Protein backbone atom coordinates (compact mmCIF):
# COMPACT_ATOMS: atom_id res chain seq x y z
CA UNK A 1 0.00 0.00 0.00
CA UNK A 2 1.22 3.50 -0.86
CA UNK A 3 -0.14 6.94 -0.03
CA UNK A 4 0.81 10.11 -1.89
CA UNK A 5 -0.43 13.48 -0.75
CA UNK A 6 -1.93 15.62 -3.52
CA UNK A 7 -3.54 18.52 -1.70
CA UNK A 8 -3.84 19.46 1.94
CA UNK A 9 -5.92 22.21 3.41
CA UNK A 10 -7.40 22.66 6.85
CA UNK A 11 -10.79 21.30 5.84
CA UNK A 12 -9.88 19.26 2.78
CA UNK A 13 -7.41 16.56 1.85
CA UNK A 14 -6.76 14.82 -1.43
CA UNK A 15 -4.47 11.83 -1.69
CA UNK A 16 -3.57 8.99 -3.96
CA UNK A 17 -3.96 5.51 -2.49
CA UNK A 18 -2.20 2.75 -4.38
CA UNK A 19 -2.30 -0.99 -3.76
CA UNK A 20 -5.65 -1.14 -1.97
CA UNK A 21 -9.03 -2.63 -2.82
CA UNK A 22 -12.02 -0.52 -3.83
CA UNK A 23 -13.75 -1.87 -0.70
CA UNK A 24 -11.03 -0.33 1.47
CA UNK A 25 -11.16 3.05 -0.27
CA UNK A 26 -14.92 3.00 0.01
CA UNK A 27 -14.66 1.97 3.65
CA UNK A 28 -12.52 5.03 4.38
CA UNK A 29 -14.96 7.26 2.52
CA UNK A 30 -18.01 5.85 4.30
CA UNK A 31 -16.31 5.91 7.72
CA UNK A 32 -15.36 9.60 7.23
CA UNK A 33 -18.98 10.44 6.52
CA UNK A 34 -20.88 8.32 9.01
CA UNK A 35 -18.64 6.67 11.60
CA UNK A 36 -16.44 9.48 12.91
CA UNK A 37 -18.25 11.17 15.83
CA UNK A 38 -18.61 14.91 16.28
CA UNK A 39 -20.60 17.34 18.40
CA UNK A 40 -23.91 18.89 17.37
CA UNK A 41 -26.76 20.58 19.21
CA UNK A 42 -29.15 17.78 20.11
CA UNK A 43 -32.03 19.16 22.13
CA UNK A 44 -33.16 22.71 22.88
CA UNK A 45 -35.48 24.38 25.35
CA UNK A 46 -37.15 27.51 24.05
CA UNK A 47 -37.98 30.12 26.65
CA UNK A 48 -38.99 32.80 24.23
CA UNK A 49 -39.16 33.18 20.51
CA UNK A 50 -40.91 36.18 19.06
CA UNK A 51 -38.85 36.14 15.87
CA UNK A 52 -40.41 35.66 12.47
CA UNK A 53 -39.25 32.04 12.30
CA UNK A 54 -41.12 29.08 13.78
CA UNK A 55 -39.56 27.33 16.77
CA UNK A 56 -38.93 24.25 14.63
CA UNK A 57 -36.97 26.23 12.05
CA UNK A 58 -34.81 27.82 14.77
CA UNK A 59 -34.14 24.39 16.24
CA UNK A 60 -33.14 22.94 12.87
CA UNK A 61 -30.81 25.84 12.16
CA UNK A 62 -29.16 25.50 15.56
CA UNK A 63 -28.75 21.76 15.08
CA UNK A 64 -26.95 22.21 11.78
CA UNK A 65 -24.23 24.54 13.12
CA UNK A 66 -20.91 22.65 13.05
CA UNK A 67 -19.10 22.59 16.40
CA UNK A 68 -15.48 22.03 17.31
CA UNK A 69 -13.99 20.85 20.57
CA UNK A 70 -10.43 21.30 21.77
CA UNK A 71 -10.53 17.74 23.09
CA UNK A 72 -13.41 15.71 21.78
CA UNK A 73 -12.33 12.59 23.66
CA UNK A 74 -13.48 13.98 27.02
CA UNK A 75 -17.05 13.52 25.83
CA UNK A 76 -18.63 10.16 25.28
CA UNK A 77 -21.67 9.45 23.16
CA UNK A 78 -24.90 9.14 25.21
CA UNK A 79 -25.20 5.39 24.51
CA UNK A 80 -21.72 4.62 25.87
CA UNK A 81 -21.87 7.07 28.77
CA UNK A 82 -21.79 5.95 32.41
CA UNK A 83 -25.11 7.74 32.93
CA UNK A 84 -26.68 5.27 30.45
CA UNK A 85 -28.25 7.98 28.31
CA UNK A 86 -29.85 9.91 31.18
CA UNK A 87 -27.64 12.91 30.47
CA UNK A 88 -24.62 14.10 32.41
CA UNK A 89 -21.66 16.47 31.89
CA UNK A 90 -19.74 13.51 30.43
CA UNK A 91 -22.00 13.31 27.38
CA UNK A 92 -23.59 16.76 27.17
CA UNK A 93 -22.33 20.30 26.59
CA UNK A 94 -24.84 22.92 27.62
CA UNK A 95 -25.27 26.13 25.69
CA UNK A 96 -27.28 29.29 25.95
CA UNK A 97 -28.38 31.74 23.28
CA UNK A 98 -30.04 35.02 24.13
CA UNK A 99 -30.61 37.84 21.69
CA UNK A 100 -32.82 40.85 21.47
CA UNK A 101 -33.58 42.79 18.33
CA UNK A 102 -32.90 44.66 16.23
CA UNK A 103 -29.96 42.44 15.26
CA UNK A 104 -28.88 39.45 13.26
CA UNK A 105 -28.30 36.32 15.35
CA UNK A 106 -25.11 34.59 14.23
CA UNK A 107 -23.63 31.20 15.10
CA UNK A 108 -21.10 32.79 17.49
CA UNK A 109 -23.95 33.99 19.72
CA UNK A 110 -24.34 30.37 20.84
CA UNK A 111 -22.26 30.21 24.03
CA UNK A 112 -21.21 26.87 25.51
CA UNK A 113 -20.51 26.22 29.16
CA UNK A 114 -17.31 24.39 28.19
CA UNK A 115 -14.89 27.05 26.88
CA UNK A 116 -13.20 24.35 24.75
CA UNK A 117 -16.32 23.90 22.66
CA UNK A 118 -16.96 26.51 19.99
CA UNK A 119 -18.83 26.89 16.74
CA UNK A 120 -16.61 25.88 13.83
CA UNK A 121 -17.47 28.95 11.79
CA UNK A 122 -18.48 32.37 13.00
CA UNK A 123 -20.95 34.37 11.01
CA UNK A 124 -23.46 31.67 10.10
CA UNK A 125 -26.78 33.54 10.18
CA UNK A 126 -29.50 31.97 12.33
CA UNK A 127 -32.32 34.51 12.29
CA UNK A 128 -32.77 38.23 11.90
CA UNK A 129 -34.58 39.89 14.80
CA UNK A 130 -36.63 43.04 14.38
CA UNK A 131 -37.30 45.78 16.91
CA UNK A 132 -38.53 44.25 20.19
CA UNK A 133 -38.22 40.64 19.03
CA UNK A 134 -36.54 38.21 21.40
CA UNK A 135 -34.94 34.81 21.26
CA UNK A 136 -33.99 32.90 24.42
CA UNK A 137 -32.81 29.34 23.92
CA UNK A 138 -31.03 26.88 26.16
CA UNK A 139 -30.02 23.34 25.35
CA UNK A 140 -27.21 20.88 24.96
CA UNK A 141 -24.99 19.31 22.33
CA UNK A 142 -24.10 15.63 22.21
CA UNK A 143 -21.48 13.57 20.43
CA UNK A 144 -22.75 11.09 17.88
CA UNK A 145 -21.95 9.84 14.41
CA UNK A 146 -23.32 10.77 11.01
CA UNK A 147 -25.30 7.54 10.88
CA UNK A 148 -27.65 9.01 13.52
CA UNK A 149 -28.30 12.29 11.70
CA UNK A 150 -26.38 14.26 9.07
CA UNK A 151 -25.76 17.11 11.55
CA UNK A 152 -23.25 14.79 13.25
CA UNK A 153 -21.41 14.15 9.98
CA UNK A 154 -17.80 15.26 10.33
CA UNK A 155 -16.93 14.41 6.72
CA UNK A 156 -19.30 16.17 4.36
CA UNK A 157 -17.98 15.83 0.82
CA UNK A 158 -16.07 12.59 0.58
CA UNK A 159 -15.42 10.68 -2.59
CA UNK A 160 -13.00 8.55 -4.50
CA UNK A 161 -12.29 7.65 -8.08
CA UNK A 162 -9.94 5.28 -9.81
CA UNK A 163 -6.72 6.81 -11.00
CA UNK A 164 -7.06 7.12 -14.79
CA UNK A 165 -4.49 5.82 -17.20
CA UNK A 166 -4.39 7.59 -20.56
CA UNK A 167 -2.48 5.99 -23.41
CA UNK A 168 -1.92 7.81 -26.65
CA UNK A 169 -1.03 5.54 -29.55
CA UNK A 170 -0.97 6.37 -33.24
CA UNK A 171 -1.82 10.07 -32.91
CA UNK A 172 -2.57 12.06 -36.10
CA UNK A 173 -2.12 15.43 -34.31
CA UNK A 174 -5.60 16.71 -35.15
CA UNK A 175 -6.04 18.09 -31.61
CA UNK A 176 -9.76 17.26 -31.42
CA UNK A 177 -9.36 15.44 -28.12
CA UNK A 178 -7.65 18.49 -26.59
CA UNK A 179 -10.60 20.67 -27.55
CA UNK A 180 -13.29 18.30 -26.35
CA UNK A 181 -11.80 17.57 -22.92
CA UNK A 182 -13.90 19.46 -20.35
CA UNK A 183 -11.15 19.39 -17.73
CA UNK A 184 -8.13 20.31 -19.85
CA UNK A 185 -6.36 17.04 -19.18
CA UNK A 186 -4.71 16.96 -22.60
CA UNK A 187 -2.56 19.54 -24.38
CA UNK A 188 -0.58 19.82 -27.57
CA UNK A 189 3.16 20.12 -27.04
CA UNK A 190 5.74 21.83 -29.32
CA UNK A 191 5.78 18.99 -31.82
CA UNK A 192 1.96 19.15 -32.01
CA UNK A 193 1.75 15.83 -30.24
CA UNK A 194 -0.96 15.23 -27.65
CA UNK A 195 0.36 15.02 -24.14
CA UNK A 196 -1.31 14.34 -20.79
CA UNK A 197 -0.75 17.43 -18.66
CA UNK A 198 -3.24 17.07 -15.83
CA UNK A 199 -3.91 13.39 -15.20
CA UNK A 200 -5.58 13.80 -11.80
CA UNK A 201 -8.24 16.11 -13.22
CA UNK A 202 -9.48 13.38 -15.58
CA UNK A 203 -12.92 12.12 -14.61
CA UNK A 204 -12.84 9.17 -17.02
CA UNK A 205 -15.67 10.64 -19.09
CA UNK A 206 -14.08 9.18 -22.26
CA UNK A 207 -15.19 12.05 -24.51
CA UNK A 208 -11.71 12.05 -26.03
CA UNK A 209 -12.13 8.42 -27.08
CA UNK A 210 -15.39 9.20 -28.87
CA UNK A 211 -13.87 12.26 -30.53
CA UNK A 212 -10.74 10.57 -31.87
CA UNK A 213 -11.25 9.40 -35.46
CA UNK A 214 -8.21 7.12 -35.35
CA UNK A 215 -8.89 5.26 -32.08
CA UNK A 216 -5.50 6.45 -30.94
CA UNK A 217 -6.50 7.25 -27.38
CA UNK A 218 -7.45 4.86 -24.58
CA UNK A 219 -8.58 5.80 -21.10
CA UNK A 220 -8.73 3.04 -18.50
CA UNK A 221 -9.09 3.08 -14.73
CA UNK A 222 -6.16 1.68 -12.77
CA UNK A 223 -7.97 -0.94 -10.65
CA UNK A 224 -5.92 -0.65 -7.46
CA UNK A 225 -5.24 3.10 -7.41
CA UNK A 226 -7.67 5.61 -6.00
CA UNK A 227 -7.80 9.37 -5.66
CA UNK A 228 -9.62 10.11 -2.43
CA UNK A 229 -11.03 13.55 -1.73
CA UNK A 230 -12.14 14.10 1.86
CA UNK A 231 -13.70 17.35 2.95
CA UNK A 232 -14.85 17.98 6.50
CA UNK A 233 -17.40 20.33 8.02
CA UNK A 234 -14.76 22.26 9.95
CA UNK A 235 -15.30 20.44 13.24
CA UNK A 236 -12.12 18.42 12.79
CA UNK A 237 -9.07 18.84 10.56
CA UNK A 238 -9.38 16.82 7.36
CA UNK A 239 -6.05 15.07 7.92
CA UNK A 240 -7.18 13.86 11.36
CA UNK A 241 -10.55 12.83 10.00
CA UNK A 242 -8.98 10.22 7.72
CA UNK A 243 -6.90 8.86 10.61
CA UNK A 244 -9.99 8.56 12.80
CA UNK A 245 -11.91 6.84 10.00
CA UNK A 246 -9.17 4.25 9.52
CA UNK A 247 -8.96 3.70 13.29
CA UNK A 248 -12.72 3.20 13.39
CA UNK A 249 -12.58 0.48 10.73
CA UNK A 250 -9.63 -1.10 12.48
CA UNK A 251 -11.47 -1.11 15.80
CA UNK A 252 -14.50 -2.81 14.28
CA UNK A 253 -12.42 -5.44 12.47
CA UNK A 254 -10.63 -6.09 15.75
CA UNK A 255 -13.96 -6.58 17.50
CA UNK A 256 -15.04 -9.13 14.89
CA UNK A 257 -11.81 -11.00 15.44
CA UNK A 258 -12.34 -11.02 19.21
CA UNK A 259 -15.94 -12.16 18.93
CA UNK A 260 -14.92 -14.96 16.54
CA UNK A 261 -12.29 -16.12 19.00
CA UNK A 262 -14.94 -16.14 21.78
CA UNK A 263 -17.38 -18.12 19.68
CA UNK A 264 -15.03 -20.80 18.37
Amino acid at each position, binding site marked *: MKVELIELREDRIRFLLTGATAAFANGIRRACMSEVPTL*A*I*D*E*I*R*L*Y*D*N*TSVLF*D*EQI*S*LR*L*GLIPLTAEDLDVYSSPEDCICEGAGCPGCRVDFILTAEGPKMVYSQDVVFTDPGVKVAFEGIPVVVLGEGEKLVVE*GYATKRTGSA*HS*KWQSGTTCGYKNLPRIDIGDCQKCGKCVKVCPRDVLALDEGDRVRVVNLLACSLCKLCIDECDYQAITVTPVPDSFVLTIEGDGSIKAKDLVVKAAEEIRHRAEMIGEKMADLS
Partner: protein
Amino acid sequence: MAYRCTRCKRTVEVDYEYSGIRCPYCGHRILMKERPTTVKKMKAV
Protein backbone atom coordinates in the same frame (compact mmCIF):
# COMPACT_ATOMS: atom_id res chain seq x y z
CA MET B 1 -56.57 31.51 27.60
CA ALA B 2 -55.24 34.84 26.47
CA TYR B 3 -55.74 36.13 22.96
CA ARG B 4 -54.68 39.34 21.33
CA CYS B 5 -56.78 41.35 18.96
CA THR B 6 -54.93 42.05 15.69
CA ARG B 7 -56.66 45.42 15.22
CA CYS B 8 -56.67 47.09 18.66
CA LYS B 9 -53.72 44.99 19.97
CA ARG B 10 -55.41 44.54 23.34
CA THR B 11 -55.32 41.34 25.37
CA VAL B 12 -58.69 39.68 25.16
CA GLU B 13 -60.45 37.03 27.18
CA VAL B 14 -62.81 35.12 24.97
CA ASP B 15 -66.20 34.04 26.30
CA TYR B 16 -67.05 31.20 23.93
CA GLU B 17 -70.61 30.78 25.22
CA TYR B 18 -71.67 34.37 24.84
CA SER B 19 -70.02 36.13 21.96
CA GLY B 20 -68.13 33.58 19.87
CA ILE B 21 -64.72 34.66 18.56
CA ARG B 22 -64.85 38.44 18.66
CA CYS B 23 -62.96 41.22 20.38
CA PRO B 24 -65.17 42.73 23.10
CA TYR B 25 -63.48 46.14 22.70
CA CYS B 26 -63.52 46.77 18.99
CA GLY B 27 -65.57 43.88 17.61
CA HIS B 28 -62.77 42.61 15.38
CA ARG B 29 -63.05 38.93 14.53
CA ILE B 30 -59.35 38.11 14.07
CA LEU B 31 -57.58 37.19 17.31
CA MET B 32 -54.09 35.79 17.83
CA LYS B 33 -53.25 33.21 20.44
CA GLU B 34 -50.43 34.40 22.73
CA ARG B 35 -47.35 32.27 23.17
CA PRO B 36 -47.69 30.27 26.41
CA THR B 37 -45.15 31.05 29.13
CA THR B 38 -44.14 27.38 29.44
CA VAL B 39 -40.75 26.22 28.24
CA LYS B 40 -40.88 24.37 24.94
CA LYS B 41 -38.59 21.40 24.63
CA MET B 42 -37.71 19.98 21.24
CA LYS B 43 -35.13 18.01 19.32
CA ALA B 44 -32.86 20.16 17.19
CA VAL B 45 -33.72 18.50 13.90
